[in-house]
């Protein structure tokens, strides 16, 4: 069994109010030098069997279709966990 990690982030051009609120919270506790925070998601997919290039490609399609909303998010990486 292998773990495949997919990371999704909100699109840079769009608002990230949760990220903004988090940045403010960090600044309030001594993190004044932290100027921005963006919050995304990390998915850990447990895959039965070998993770071939075909499997990764399939995961890529599913990442675009389901794990992310391409209108407001980007899939920034898909990789096998070490």
């Amino acid at each position: 069994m292998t773990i495949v990690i997919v990371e999704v982030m909100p699109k840079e051009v769009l608002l990230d109010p949760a990220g903004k609120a988090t940045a403010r919270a960090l600044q309030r506790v001594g993190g004044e030098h932290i100027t921005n925070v963006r919050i995304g998601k990390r998915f850990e997919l447990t895959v039965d069997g070998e993770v071939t290039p075909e499997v990764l490609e399939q995961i890529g399609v599913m990442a675009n279709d389901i794990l992310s909303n391409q209108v407001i998010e980007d899939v920034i990486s898909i990789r096998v966990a070490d």
Partner: protein
Amino acid sequence: MRVGVVTFPGSLDDRDALRAIKLAGGEPVSLWHSEHDLHGVDAIVLPGGFSYGDYLRCGAIAAHSPIMTDVVDAANRGMPVLGICNGFQVLVEAHLLAGGLIRNDHGTFIRRDQKLRVENTDTAWTSGYSVGQEITIPLKNGEGGFIADDETLAQLEGEGLVVFRYVDVNPNGSLNDIAGIRNARGNVVGLMPHPEHAVEAGFGPNTSVAMKSGTDGLAMFQSVLAASIFS
């Protein structure tokens, strides 16, 4: 006229939507998320709630329900489809409407009686209003912030696809105070506020006349009944 209301696991305002249709004079029909069966309805409502607990993204999992292939199909053939709150989120995830919906800018859930301006009456769901009309509709959400990139926003505004706009107070940080939009064709409409909670005197928003007497939402359900006559 038969108007269907889809129930997903976690849908909450489906019963209210069914009641609204009945009060407007239509025949409400319950539709189940996992069936490929629209039961011969003439219009569809995707109701408010927390389908699938808002897991993954609001409306994301519901958008991939079996029945959604039938709903998308029907929408593409011109059937009127209304998405309310979580239903709006489902329509956006299913790409039947533009843009996206994210967490309220102030970070908390808010429930308030919200003033809206009707900006487009050229849809199956808003023909019963007049352009510029101000109505009061209950709003209750935590993830109601409408966002879109500059290009999409320009298109929505430029083509007059904004149907409702927040007035006086923007309750969730939606860009351009957008409360609801339509597709190009005008049969699909989505909005964050809940018209089905302003249909029965005694249970709607307060007005200056009497407590809980507001019924500004009824026209939305009456509009679609009129639409069927001409479709």
